[in-house]
């Protein structure tokens, strides 16, 4: 698959985002909502830090034995009457899903929220196969109406304001009276609910993602607050679970540990409203539920990630706490990152999945403030992993030329202390004279990125080392 990414244009994307007043208004909701709610949920559970360790250990253990847990999981799904499909690539996955839809003659597919579906661009593939996908998560539904990508992995439309959503609903829901009042968010929700209810009942196939897969029982788990994921998998006659291979955990107990950190980290809830454990198709005497149950296990580069320093990234449970706490994400929003996964987790994952040549900006666009790592429920050292990408880029000469040459000059002097002392003393003396009157510079050559918007303090005069040795000698 040729991933559609605008990540190489990150800087231009960021520029547009910073100058988009509606986006900037909407992004304020990230900071005001998620951060405080996560903190109060964590504070309410004295065991939260210990649970983070536990969650990390469970994931590490599972990843180290992933081949065996996959086999165990597959056997259990099969025993429960389900089917497991292995998809090495995104194209394999979309082909498997499209084939199932074709075989059962599906016209419409109801979809629960799934980032894997975004990753493999499933909707485009389904449309090409003549099947109409319907996103049923409120946020994803709006995204689909707009022909956009989610800008956040938990809150897909965090980049929008209600008036924009109202405009979309008026554009699309043309059968409803144009004079209706949609000013309250409640009325937007009610309208979407009404529109989607019909789609649920009419859908031939339901597709959901999975937050976890349980090897012990062959169970897939989804967590939602709306209930759309449940309607998507309960009403249609076929349920397809789309999951990547690193979603596995060994047992129901392990899953419970993970669930204790997931919702608290994501939305600050004790637990999501609906946590659904699905195992196989409906049982012979059941009165509802799908007649067929399929799991599509996507690799798409993950099995190779297990080999190196990015294995830790496979612990990620997609809670979005990292982006919720990221100053860069707060500034530019998710779309600027240019691909499916934004924020710090995307800055590490995207280069692994679509190549560092495409996503090279992402691990660089971080101040390394470390707030992401400090809230990660599975303790992924995100800054360290971003730095590892920068090392790969440096090795491959992919770092931006001005940065490379600037650093090379700096490194040249810094590695020669005597030359450094001599040169810096002279340079700082001169700069200090130049900046003497104001004490700062409004513009500096080669530092436009800074001085376009900020002053730059002028040096006091001589260097510390020069003054220190002069003063100590004088004593």
């Amino acid at each position, binding site marked *: 698959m040729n991933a559609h990414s605008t990540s190489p244009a990150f800087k231009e994307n960021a520029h547009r985002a910073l100058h988009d007043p509606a986006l900037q208004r909407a992004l304020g909701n990230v900071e005001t909502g998620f951060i405080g709610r996560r903190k109060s949920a964590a504070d309410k559970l004295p065991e939260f830090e210990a649970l983070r360790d536990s969650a990390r250990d469970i994931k590490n253990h599972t990843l180290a034995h992933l081949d065996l847990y996959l086999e165990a999981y597959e056997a259990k799904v099969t025993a429960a009457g389900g089917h497991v499909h292995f998809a090495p690539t995104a194209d394999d996955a979309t082909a498997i899903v499209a084939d199932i839809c074709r075989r059962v003659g599906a016209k419409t597919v109801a979809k629960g929220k799934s980032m894997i579906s975004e990753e493999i661009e499933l909707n485009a593939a389904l449309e090409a196969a003549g099947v109409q996908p319907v996103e049923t998560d409120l946020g994803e539904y709006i995204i689909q109406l707009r022909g956009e990508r989610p800008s956040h992995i938990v809150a897909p439309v965090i980049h929008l304001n209600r008036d924009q959503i109202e405009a979309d609903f008026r554009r699309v829901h043309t059968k409803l009276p144009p004079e209706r009042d949609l000013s309250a968010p409640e009325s937007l929700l009610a309208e979407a609910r009404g529109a989607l209810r019909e789609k649920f009942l009419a859908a031939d196939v339901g597709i959901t993602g999975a937050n976890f897969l349980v090897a012990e029982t062959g169970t897939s788990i989804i967590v939602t607050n709306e209930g759309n994921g449940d309607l998507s998998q309960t009403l249609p006659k076929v349920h397809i679970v789309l999951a990547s291979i690193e979603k596995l955990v060994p047992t129901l107990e392990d899953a419970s540990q993970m669930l204790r950190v997931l919702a608290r980290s994501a939305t600050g809830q004790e637990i999501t409203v609906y946590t659904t454990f699905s195992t196989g198709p409906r049982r012979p005497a059941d009165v509802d539920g799908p007649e067929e149950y399929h799991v599509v296990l996507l690799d798409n580069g993950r099995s190779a990630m297990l080999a190196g320093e990015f294995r830790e990234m496979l612990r990620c449970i997609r809670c979005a706490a990292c982006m919720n706490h990221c100053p860069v994400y707060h500034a530019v929003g998710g779309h600027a990152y240019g691909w499916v996964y934004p924020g710090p987790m995307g800055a590490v994952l995207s280069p692994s999945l679509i190549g560092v040549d495409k996503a090279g900006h992402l691990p660089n666009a971080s101040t390394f403030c470390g707030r992401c790592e*400090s809230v990660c429920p599975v303790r992924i050292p995100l800054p360290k992993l971003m730095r590892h990408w920068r090392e790969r880029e440096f090795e491959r000469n992919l770092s931006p030329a001005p940065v490379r040459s600037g650093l090379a000059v700096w490194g040249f002097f810094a590695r020669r202390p005597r030359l450094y002392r001599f040169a810096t003393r002279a340079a700082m003396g001169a700069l200090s004279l130049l900046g003497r009157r104001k004490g700062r510079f409004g513009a500096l050559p080669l530092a436009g990125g800074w001085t376009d918007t900020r002053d730059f*303090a002028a040096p006091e005069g*001589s260097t510390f080392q020069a003054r220190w040795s002069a003063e100590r000698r004088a004593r």
Partner: protein
Amino acid sequence: MSAQPGPRPRVGLFATCLVDLIRPSVGFAAAKLIEASGCDVVVPSQTCCGQPAFNSGDRRTAKALAWQAIEAFEGVDYVVAPSGSCAGQLKKHVPELFEDEPELSRPADAFAAKVFELVSFLVDVRGMKAVDARFDGAVTYHDSCAGLRELGIRAQPRALLESVEGLTLTEMKDSDVCCGFGGTFAVKYGEISDAIVAKKADNISAAETGTLLAGDLGCLMNMAGKLQRLGRPVKARHVAEVLAGMGDEPAIGEPQGR
């Protein structure tokens, strides 16, 4: 001030390149505080901790600079830097650089063990509870990221500031949120960096203090530069200057008095 019994420890002051080049007075303030805590101060020949190279993916240069520092600070009891970011590099990341080389990792680990950020050194290592300083006015304090999250520095500067006569500390909103500096990030992604520091400047202004303090010159230059460009009447200083009773010298980016 604490005067501990026994021989006075020898502290190698790692001034950091920004202090060395831009604001030597922070180095003198640091030296004064370290001496007041009962230590002797030496300033070995030094350049840069290697963090810009390390964070840009240039491990080779980072290692060379790290090794240079390890050798330069041989023979001191402590290495103290008036910067959470540079101290974090020397304490947390230098060992990472040498972890695969058994002969080098021992000295690297030993070096890292004796590295401290200035204020945490004074409080946590030297047991300093108060300083002999006066500063008239309200200040607000920004927690620089590396100091806060890599080294756990939060209470220490506040404890010492409380002992400064005439000083009141007013907390700003989100004092623990990044100022947008990020080293080379501030230049490479200047526009994003500016958006972040603009928010920070608003939070600083909203605290309605005349002075902004922090423990890292990089962050301070970024915040001072934004405040000055916006014409906000807040002066920025390194926390060491105020703790050392040197808070009456020209603030960061202000003309040298005469």
